[in-house]
């Protein structure tokens, strides 16, 4: 008898919790997959496609579905480490099949050579190239992510990828440029 009571009680409980869970699943449904957003926030948003996916978000979705985390050369090791942290997996070195980590670059069109074909404009994932058919094109430098995708389509090879110039406001302190430190001048001069 006690066994039957226990079974009934547990069965009822299971039913109640099942209903609560079922209700919660419908009522508190999350529209997008938050893990994808979190991964996407870590990726560098260059939209370069070096990982083999057409942009950072598709790669974020792929990682959420179990793809490797070491396919992003623009992000480099720091991005891999952050992803490893988030996903709870081992950090790996960058997969060299997808490219090497490089300095930050920006595309520059040699404007007198541009023929106005618009091919680069169509290739740019962030609409950072300005121009129209048979008109000269130019890169909006501060919107350019340095993804390299405009270089290949150019029929006259007039696009260069140049490293982002170092200016006083983005200069990283050079540790060689070092200290100025007082010794006890009074003592040393005696």
């Amino acid at each position: 008898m006690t066994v039957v009571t226990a079974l009934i009680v547990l069965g009822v409980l299971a039913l109640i919790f099942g209903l609560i869970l079922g209700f919660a699943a419908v009522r508190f449904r999350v529209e997008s997959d938050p893990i994808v957003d979190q991964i996407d926030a870590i990726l560098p948003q260059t939209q370069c496609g070096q990982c083999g996916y057409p942009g950072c978000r598709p790669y974020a979705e792929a990682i959420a579905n179990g793809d490797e985390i070491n396919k992003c050369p623009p992000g480099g090791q720091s991005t891999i480490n952050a992803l490893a942290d988030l996903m709870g997996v081992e950090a790996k070195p960058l997969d060299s099949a997808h490219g090497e980590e490089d300095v930050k670059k920006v595309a520059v069109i040699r404007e007198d050579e541009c023929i106005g074909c618009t091919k680069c404009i169509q290739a740019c994932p962030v609409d950072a190239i300005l121009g129209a058919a048979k008109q000269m094109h130019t890169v909006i430098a501060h919107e350019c992510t340095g993804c390299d995708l405009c270089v290949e389509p150019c029929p006259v090879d007039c696009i260069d990828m140049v490293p982002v110039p170092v200016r006083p406001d983005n200069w990283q302190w050079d540790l060689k440029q070092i200290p100025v430190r007082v010794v006890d001048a009074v003592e040393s001069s005696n």
Partner: protein
Amino acid sequence: MSAATKAIEAGHIWTFPGGIHPPERKEISNQTPIAPLPLAQQYTIPVKQHSGAPGEVLVQVGDKVKAGQALTQVGANNGLPVHAPTSGTVTAIGPGMIAHPSGLTDTVITIEADGNDEHVAFEPLANYTEISRAELLERIKTAGIAGLGGAGFPTAQKLALQRPLDYLIINGVECEPYISADDRLMREHAQTIIDGTEILLHIAGCEKALIAIEANKPEAIAAFEALLDKHPQLSLRVVPVKYPSGGEKQLIQLLTGRQVPSRGLPIDVGLVMQNVGTAYAVAQATLQGKPLLERVVTVTGENVAKPGNYWVRIGTPVAYLLEQCGFKPEPEQRVIMGGPMMGFTLADLSVPVVKITNCILVPSSQELAPAQDEMACIRCGACADVCPAQLLPQQLQWLAKAKDYDGLEQQNLFDCIECGACAYVCPSEIPLVHYYRKAKAEVRNIAREKAKAEVARERFEARQERLEREKQERLERHRKAAEARKKAQAEAVAQGGDNPQDAVQAAIARAKARKAAQAAAAEQQNKDGDDA
């Protein structure tokens, strides 16, 4: 009146944690009055000399300019103008050396002096209380005044913050060794500084000002004591000698016992601070209408024959300034802009004196030892004892080396005022401040990259959306065109015209008939073949 306010009024001096007592060495430069520096042949004026965006350049190569003429305009984002320091011709506008530890170039305006030193007509103001606060702020802004104490924060912007203030603090502490520019200025121009302080009080809408001077400047203290009887709003505070008493947060703690919150501003605790040099410049700009054309610069160190303080026009090349002071360079001579604790070594002597240059130090290798190799940290804890911001320099150093930027923020890296006290006492010669500066630059860089990535994401998503929309529109257009075609045909048929569909059907029927005929013929042949 609360007990704390009473104590402030009574002139109580609090204390701040840490601090050091390096040799002061101010006697090298503070013996002689401030001397005017003869005009140079050439001046290079960087367009950006304050913290904020530079203004737009107003002149062109070949233009004749007069002293006091604005070379850039008041820009957006608190951009301050720069002015021609003397009369002459603009010979170049382009990249040139600037006063920055990186040794990188930035836009500078080069002026070839004509030697006449004519200036534009200044507009003196008899009674500043008659014009509005906004007009006074505008006057200070167009005079190009930025904090002359070192940070170069636009003065008008600081004063424009409208919040109740208890005190305006005038900082004449000048705690860094060697430097005596503010000391001499206070001795010789105490009245102008007081005038400037009263103008600042008027603009800030504040009742009382505290003038802080370090105890090692008795002449400056005497100069103010003699004048302050007539100015009840102003009171003098003498602070004990300790480095870095002149740091903004440290001085606030000394004079009021209040602590500026982490990442906060003095205004959060009801205070605002200005340097004595700034007060002087404000008086000049308001009463005389004179923009910021020159400042007092200490030239000191054992390798100059005539150390002292000089009125130096903004834009004067350091090489010229040193030449005038009898520079005797030794092999591998270092020329330091700023003091020995917070200054930086210049990469090139063509760098000009700018608004925030308070000292040029040319030490012999005897008096200022060249940097030694860094040795391992022995965890002695001396750095933590002297840190005026109560940080853990040792811990910050480990974190900076490990590039643990989250950890650095948790340890309040951004509260570090880069005073250099920790590096000064470090027995292992670890250049601690440079690790912090580098880490700060990297944290800022990461923040910038993050903001840029956010923009790129938005642009990428907007583009995806646009492409999708265009695709839908194209499909819609095709569908509509097809419908229109069908409709036209149907109408044509209804009006008794040829239905193109009929022709198609007929053609299909013909093709079918032909195929059937061919098949029949082939079958016939096969049958014939079998029979044979």
